[in-house]
C-alpha cells in the first residue's frame, strides 16, 4: 500500500468504533436521553468480545469465535444500558450522573472480572489468530488507491457502513424513526397521540448500549487483540463529540467520526511523513479534542439538539 492509501485505510479502521458508538449515541439522544455512559458501554463491549471470543475458541467455535464475541458484546452492551434506562427513564434520575456511574461501574466491573477470570492478570488472553482479519473485497480492492483505502478492511468495518445507512433509513423513513424522534423533540406531543414515551426511550437507550457494545468489540477484535483497563480510553467521549459535531444525524456523525479517525490515524502513521515527525505525540493525540472545542465554540449556537434531550418526561408537568 502506498502512504496515502495506508493512511486512509487506517482512518477507516480507527473510525469504525467511533461511528458505531456515535450511532448509538444518536438513537439515545434522539429519543431524549443524554448518554454520557457511552464510554462505559464500549468498555463492556470490548471486554465481552475479548472474553467470549477467547472462550468461543476454547469451546470449539473455530472461525465463528469472533462473531460469537461480537454477538455477546451487543447483548451485554444492551443489558448494561438497561441500568441507565431504568434509572433515568423509570426512576427519572439525572441522566448525566447515571452516565458517569455507568462509566465507573463498567471499568470497575470488567477489570474485576478480568482479574477473577484470568488469575489476577490485568488483561485477557491475546486473540491474534482468532480475532478478525482484513478482508479484501474481490475486484474492488484492486482499484489503485481507492482499493487500498476502502476495500481492504475488517468485516466489522463493512458492517459499520451498512449500519450507518440502516440507521439513517430507520430514523428518517420509518414509523419507528418518526416516533423515536418525536419522543425526543416533544414527548408531550407523542404521549397525546398514544405513543409510549417510556417504550421509545428504552429502545433508544438499549440501542445505544447494543451499538456501543459492538463498537467496543471492534476495538478488541481489530486493534488491540485483548482487553485491559486502557483498551477504551476516551473513545466513548469522542463519539459523543461526533454526535454533536454531526448534528445528531447518522451521516453527519459518521463524517465527524471519520475525521476523528483520521487524526488518530495520523498519529499512528506519524512516522510516514517528515513534517509530522517533528510534532510531539501528545499534540497529535489532543488534536481531536482541541478541534472539537474549536468547532463547538464556532458552531455551538447553530447546531440544535433534540429539544427534550436531558429532561425526564413527567406527564403531570404538561
Amino acid at each position: 500500500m502506498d502512504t496515502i492509501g495506508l493512511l486512509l485505510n487506517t482512518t477507516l479502521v480507527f473510525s469504525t468504533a467511533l461511528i458505531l458508538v456515535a450511532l448509538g449515541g444518536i438513537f439515545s439522544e434522539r429519543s431524549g436521553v443524554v448518554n454520557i455512559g457511552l464510554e462505559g458501554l464500549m468498555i463492556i463491549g470490548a471486554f465481552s468480545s475479548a472474553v467470549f471470543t477467547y472462550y468461543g475458541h476454547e469451546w470449539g467455535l473455530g472461525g465463528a469465535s469472533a462473531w460469537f464475541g461480537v454477538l455477546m458484546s451487543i447483548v451485554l452492551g444492551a443489558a448494561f444500558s438497561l441500568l441507565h434506562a431504568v434509572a433515568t427513564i423509570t426512576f427519572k434520575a439525572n441522566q448525566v450522573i447515571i452516565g458517569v456511574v455507568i462509566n465507573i461501574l463498567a471499568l470497575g466491573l470488567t477489570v474485576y472480572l478480568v482479574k477473577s477470570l484470568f488469575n489476577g492478570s490485568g488483561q485477557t488472553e491475546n486473540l491474534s489468530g482468532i480475532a478478525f482479519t482484513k478482508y479484501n473485497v474481490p475486484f474492488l480492492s484492486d482499484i489503485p488507491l481507492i482499493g487500498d483505502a476502502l476495500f481492504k478492511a475488517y468485516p466489522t468495518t463493512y458492517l459499520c457502513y451498512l449500519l450507518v445507512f440502516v440507521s439513517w433509513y430507520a430514523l428518517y423513513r420509518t414509523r419507528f424513526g418518526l416516533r423515536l424522534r418525536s419522543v425526543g423533540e416533544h414527548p408531550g406531543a407523542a404521549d397525546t397521540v398514544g405513543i409510549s414515551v417510556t417504550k421509545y426511550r428504552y429502545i433508544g437507550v438499549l440501542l445505544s448500549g447494543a451499538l456501543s457494545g459492538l463498537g467496543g468489540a471492534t476495538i478488541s477484535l481489530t486493534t488491540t487483540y485483548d482487553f485491559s483497563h486502557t483498551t477504551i480510553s476516551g473513545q466513548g467521549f469522542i463519539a459523543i463529540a461526533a454526535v454533536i459535531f454531526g448534528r445528531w444525524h447518522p451521516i453527519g456523525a459518521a463524517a465527524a467520526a471519520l475525521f476523528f479517525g483520521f487524526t488518530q490515524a495520523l498519529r499512528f502513521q506519524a512516522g510516514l511523513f517528515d513534517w509530522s515527525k517533528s510534532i510531539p505525540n501528545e499534540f497529535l493525540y489532543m488534536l481531536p479534542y482541541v478541534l472539537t472545542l474549536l468547532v463547538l465554540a464556532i458552531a455551538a449556537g447553530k447546531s440544535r439538539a433534540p429539544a427534550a434531550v436531558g429532561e425526564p418526561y413527567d406527564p403531570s408537568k404538561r
Partner: protein
Amino acid sequence: MGQQPIVAELKGITKRFPGIVANDNISLQLRKGEIHALLGENGAGKSTLMNILFGLYQPDEGHIEIDGKPVVIDGAGKAIELRIGMVHQHFKLVKPFTVAENIILGNEPTKGIKVDIKGAGERVRQLSDQYGLKVDPHVRIEDITVGMQQRVEILKTLYRGADILIFDEPTAVLTVQEIEELIEILRALAREGKSIILITHKLKEIMAIADTCTVIRRGKVVGSVAVKDSSERQLAEMMVGRSVNFQVNKEKSKPGKAILEVNGLTVQGEHGKAVVDNVSFQIRAGEIYGIAGVDGNGQTQLVEAITGMRQASGGSVRVHGQELLGSSVRQVTEAGVSHIPEDRHKHGLVLDFSVSENMVLGNYYRAPYTRSGILNYKAMDENATKLAAEFDVRMSSIHTEARSLSGGNQQKAIIARELTRDPELIIAVQPTRGLDVGAIEFVHKQLIEARNAGKAVLLVSFELEELYGLSDRLAVIYEGRIMGQMDADEKNEEQIGLMMAGNALGSAASDTALRQGES
C-alpha cells in the same frame, strides 16, 4: 338540542392532587352536534377535567360513559380509539416536523416499512379542504403562524376520526380575525355532527358560539345553562361566586411631565427581521399607558429592550431625559425603573430562594442588605416582614421557599418588591395572568394607586378588558409596530380589533386619536 343523543357523560368525577381537590364530584353531559362551553376561573379545574376525559389523568372517583357505555380511558391512545380528540392550549406539535408528519404521528400509513408521506399529504389536504382549513401538509410547523398551527391540531383530531373535540382555551393565542375564523370552523364542525367542548374563561366567546355552558368553581359544578337563556353577567356571577364589578374605579388622570420617552426603538430578531420595529411613544407621570396586542407581536422584546435585558439595534429610550439604551439591567433599575415581569417563575422569582431573599432581588446589593460585600440577613428579613404585611402576602414564614407560595401570593410578593422600590416608571406585563378575581382586583388597585401617586405606568396585556379598565392611553402593537394610539376614553373597540390584526389606522378619526395621544 334536547332531542340529540348524549355522546359523552362524566359522572361524579373526583380528582385529588396533593393539597387540593381539583375536581369534586363533577358531572357533565355532552350531546351530539352541540358546542358545550366549560367556564371557570384559572385553577377552577377545567383542564384537569378535560385531561381526565382525554385519558391523561385517571379520576379518583366517578366514571365516564361514551355513547351510553361505561369506559375506562387509561391513556390518550384509548381516548383516540373512542373518537375523542383534544386541541391543547399549548400545542402538542413537534416543531421540526412537517404538518403531515405531525398529523400522522402515532397513526402512520406505511408502504412496506416506509412511512407513506405522500399518501399522508394527500389525505391531509383532502381533510383540510373538507373543513376549509387551508393547510399545506408539507411545510414545517416552525415556519407557520400560530393560527395555522392550531388548525394542524384540529386536523390531527379529525385525521383520527374524532367525533368529540375538546378545545382548551383555543382563542388565547389568536388575533381577533383568527378568532372569527376559528368560530366559523367550530360551527362547521358542529354542523357535521361533531360534539365540541370549549374550555374558556371568556364570556363573549361563549355568548357568540356555545349552545350550553357548564360553570365550574373551585372544582365543583355551579350549574349548567342554555346559553340563549343566559346573560354575560349571570355567567360571570356563577363563575366568580359573587356579583362582579367589570368597571375599575379611577379618577381622570392628571398627567405631569414625560417620564419615559421611547423613540424609534428597533430590536432585531433571530432571523434578522425586526421584532420591534421603529417604536415611539412617551409616558407621563401619573398615567397608565396600555399596550394591546396578541401574544407574540414584540411585546416581550419591547419590554426587555427598555429594561436592558435585551440588546436593541437602534433608537432611544430615555427615562427622565437620561438615555438608557445600551445600559445594563442594573443601570436601568438605578434610573428608577421597576419591572413586574411577564413570567413570574422565569424572571420574577428565584423559586428556590426564600421569600426574604426574593424580596430583595434587584436591590440585594444595596445597603442595608449588603455592607462591604457581606450580606445582612437581618435587614432582609425585616424588609420581607414589612412588605408581606403591607401587601398581604400569605405564607408560613418569610424563610419558606418562594416555590411553596400560591401563584397569587408570588405575584403579590413581586409587586410588593417592585412598587416599594420608589420607582419613577413601573413596567407591568400581564400582571394578573393566572390570578383569581380577588387577586386581580388587588393588583389593579395597586397599579392605580401608583399612578395616582404620580408614577408613570407601562401596562402590557393581552386582555383587552384589563387594558380598557386601567389605561389612560392605549396603543396597539402588531408585528413589532405600533399601529396606533388613542385616549382610553375615545377608544373604538372595533378599530382596536382591526389594528391587532395588522390594519393600521388610516382614517381621519384615527389621525385625531393620534394627535390627542401626542398632546
